C-alpha cells in the first residue's frame, strides 16, 4: 500500500513538473523578438543601489539613458519602464521596487495620465508576463485586465500561450531558465534614424480632463513616495506625438504646484536640449534614438544634480568599478 502511494505521489510530481516546464516553454521569452517584454524582469538581476528610479511607458525606456546620467554626474538610476505602461501599473511596479530598494528620487512620466482604461492585452502581457510573483503583481493584474482576460491565464501562461506549440524556436529552449541582457539599466538602445517629416494633425478632444482613476493612482504614487521619504518628479518626455495638449499640461502643473513637487515638460525644452527631430528619432518623433536620448540624458543629469541631493558615485570606488564595467559594455555597444 505504501509503495502504491509513493508511486502515485511520484506520478503526480512528474505530471506537475511537466506542467510547470510546459508553462515555461510555451511562454514567449522576449529575448530577440519583442524585447520590451523582458524589461520588467531585467531589473531583478541588477544590483539594487539606485538613487533614481524611473517609472512609466516607452517614453522613459526609449528616451533616457541611465548610463549617461552616471557618466555625466555619477547618478545611479534604473528605468522600470515598459510598453504602454498604465499609471496603475507604474504604481504597482514602484511598490514592488520599494521592496528591493528605496531611491531618493522617483521620476514618473505623465504620458499615461491620458488613458483611463487598459488599452490592449498584448501590452498588459509585455509588462506583466515576466514580472516576479508578488502581491503587487496580483493586484496589478486585477487592475490591468481587459474583459476577455483571466487571472488564471497569468498564473498558468499555458492557458494563454498554448497555441505557440507550433511556433517554438531555439530561443525558447535556450532561454528556458535564463535571460540575456537586453537593456542598460532599463534603457533600450535604438540607433536607427527615421526623421520627423510632418507632425500629424492635432485632433480636438471632447474632454481633456484626466479621469478620476488616473488622479487616484497619481495620488497613490505621491503618497507612496512621501511614506518612504522619496521625492517625486513628474516629467513629460519630448515625444512629439501622441500630442500632449496644453490642457493636459495645465492639469499636471496644477497637481505639481498643489503638492509642491517638480514637473518638467521636456517638449518645452527641445531647443535648449538641442534635440533635432531630423536626426534624433528612430520613428518620426515618437521616440528618441540613441543620439537623442544621449542629449536628453545629459541635460536631465544636470537638472537632477541641481535639484536633488544626489550622490556622485564616481567618487565611490566600489560602485564606480561596477559602473565602469557597465560603461565599457555600453560604450562598446553604442559605438
Amino acid at each position, binding site marked *: 500500500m505504501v509503495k*502504491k502511494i509513493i*508511486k*502515485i505521489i511520484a*506520478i*503526480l510530481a512528474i*505530471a506537475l513538473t*511537466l*506542467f510547470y516546464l*510546459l508553462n515555461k516553454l*510555451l511562454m514567449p521569452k522576449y529575448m530577440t523578438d519583442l524585447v520590451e517584454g523582458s524589461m520588467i524582469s531585467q531589473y531583478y538581476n541588477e544590483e539594487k543601489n539606485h538613487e533614481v528610479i524611473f517609472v512609466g511607458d516607452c517614453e522613459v525606456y526609449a528616451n533616457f539613458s541611465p548610463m549617461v546620467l552616471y557618466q555625466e554626474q555619477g547618478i545611479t538610476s534604473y528605468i522600470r519602464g515598459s510598453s504602454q505602461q498604465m499609471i496603475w501599473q507604474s504604481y504597482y511596479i514602484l511598490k514592488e521596487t520599494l521592496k528591493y530598494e528605496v531611491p531618493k528620487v522617483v521620476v514618473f512620466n505623465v504620458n499615461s495620465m491620458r488613458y483611463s482604461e487598459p488599452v490592449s*492585452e498584448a501590452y498588459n502581457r509585455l509588462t506583466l508576463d515576466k514580472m516576479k510573483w508578488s502581491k503587487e503583481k496580483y493586484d496589478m493584474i486585477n487592475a490591468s485586465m481587459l474583459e*476577455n*482576460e*483571466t487571472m*488564471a*491565464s497569468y498564473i498558468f501562461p*499555458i*492557458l*494563454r500561450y*498554448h*497555441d505557440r*506549440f*507550433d511556433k517554438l524556436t531555439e530561443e525558447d529552449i535556450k532561454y528556458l531558465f535564463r535571460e540575456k541582457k537586453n537593456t542598460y539599466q532599463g534603457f533600450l538602445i535604438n540607433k536607427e534614424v527615421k526623421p520627423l517629416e510632418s507632425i500629424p494633425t492635432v485632433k480636438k478632444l471632447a474632454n481633456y480632463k484626466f479621469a478620476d482613476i488616473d488622479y487616484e493612482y497619481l495620488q497613490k504614487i505621491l503618497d507612496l513616495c512621501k511614506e518612504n521619504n522619496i521625492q517625486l518628479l513628474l516629467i513629460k518626455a519630448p515625444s512629439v506625438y501622441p500630442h500632449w495638449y496644453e490642457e493636459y499640461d495645465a492639469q499636471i502643473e496644477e497637481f505639481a504646484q498643489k503638492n509642491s513637487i517638480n514637473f518638467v515638460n521636456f517638449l518645452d525644452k527641445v531647443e535648449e536640449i538641442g534635440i533635432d527631430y531630423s536626426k534624433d528619432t528612430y520613428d518620426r518623433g515618437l521616440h528618441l534614438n540613441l543620439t537623442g536620448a544621449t542629449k536628453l540624458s545629459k541635460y536631465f543629469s544636470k537638472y537632477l544634480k541641481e535639484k536633488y541631493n544626489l550622490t556622485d558615485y564616481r567618487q565611490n570606488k566600489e560602485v564606480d568599478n561596477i559602473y565602469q564595467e557597465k560603461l565599457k559594455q555600453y560604450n562598446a555597444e553604442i559605438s
Partner: protein
Amino acid sequence: MNLVSGIMFLIMLVTAFLYYVVPKKAKPYTLLAISVAFYISLGWQPLMFIIFSTITTYIAGILLEKNAENKTIKKLILGVTIILNGIILVVVKNQIFVKNLIVPMGISYYTFQVMSYNIDIYREKYKAQKNIAKYFLYTMYFPYLSIGPINRYNDITPTLYETNKKFNLTQSYYGLSRILLGIFKKLVVANRVQILVSTISQDPNAYQGAFALFAMLLYSIQLYCDFSGGIDVVIGFSKILQINIIENFNNPYIAESIQDFWRRWHISLSNWFRDYVYIPLGGSRCGKLRTNINVLIVFTLSGLWHGTAYVLWGLLHGIFLIIGKVVKTPSKIINRIVTFLIVSILWSFFIWPDTIQACQMIGSIFTQFNYQALIQNIGNLGLSLANYIVLIISTIAVFFYDAKKSKINEKLKSKSVEIKLILTLSVILVIFVFGVYGIGFNASEFIYNKF
C-alpha cells in the same frame, strides 16, 4: 453557460462534493437547488419559461392519471398541454411575434422531455410524479440543459431520484475519463476544425466547389466532436453522481444508409420522433405511400425542432432515407461512403444558415470543382502544418476510441491505478497544449447549445 469552462468545472466539482456529503434524502433536492441556481444565473426570463412548462405538465400529468377512464378528457388535457408547450417552443425559439427574448437554455430539450412525460402517462406507461420538487429536477437537471440528450422520464429518474448512493471510485474514474474525452473532442478537434470551416464559410465567393465540399466534410467532424463531446461531458459528470444518461451517439459515420444514420445520430431525438410522431402516425404498418409520407412528416418536424431554417435540411434527409430504401449497393463500404457524403453535404444548411446560399454552395461542388486550387491553398485556411498534423492524429484517435470504446474500457478496467493515473494526466496535458481555446478564439460555445 459553456459546458467546457472553468466555472462549469467548478460547479460540477462543488455539486459532486455536496451530493455525496448531504444526507441521503437530501440528494435530489441538493441537485435541484443547484440546478435552480444555475438557471437563475442565466436570467429570470428563461427561468419563467421552464417553470411554466414544468408546472403545466406536472398538473397535466396528475389530471391525466386521475381521468384515466375518461378518454375524451384525457385527449383534451394532452392536446392542450402539448399544443401550449409546442407553441411556446416554436414561438420563443424562432422569435416569432416576440423579439429580443432570451431563448431559454435547453428549451428544445426540456419541452420534448415534458411532452414525452405527458404522453407516456396518457398511455399509462407509468404513474405521474406527485412530488413537484422531484418533477422539477427531471426538467431542470442542469448538465443536460445546454446540450441534451432528451431524457425519458422512466430512463433517467430511477437513478436521478435514487438516494441510496455512496461515492464510487470506479464509476467516478469512468465519469472523469468520459468528461476528458468530451473536452478533448471539443477543444482539440472541433475547435481546430472550426478555424478551417469558418475561413471557408465566411467568404463564400472566394471558396466554392472543392473548398465547399472540404468545409462540408470537415464540418461533419466538427459537429460530431462538438455535439458528442458535450454529451460525453454530461454523461461523464452524471456518471460521477451515479445518474444514468442514455447514449446519444453510436458511431454515426459508419452508417450504411440515412435510416441507419438516424439510429446512430442524436439517438434521443430520433427515438422521440419515432415513438411520439412516427408510430402514432401509423409508422410502417400502413401502405408504402403512407409510410413514406410519415417519414417526410417526421423529418420535416425534426428539421423544425432545430429551427425554421432547418426544415429543408430535415425534409431532404427524409427524401434520401426513402431513396436509400430502394437504391443500395451490395458493398458496405460504398454504402458507408455514399451515406457519409450525403450527410456531409446536407450539413451545408448548418454551415451556411441562409438556405439559398447553402444550396448554391452545394451546387458549386458540381459546377466548379477545382481541387487543384484547394491543394494549393490548403495552407492558407488558418491552420499551420503542425496544426493539420495534430488535427489528423486527434481525429483518428477520437473515431478509433469511439468505435472501440467498450473494448478499450474493458481493457482499462484491469489496469492498475498508476496506469490509469498516467493516462488521465497525459490526456489533461495534451488538452492543455493542443486544445484550441482562450483569447483569440471565441467559439467555445457548443453548436447544439442553440438548439
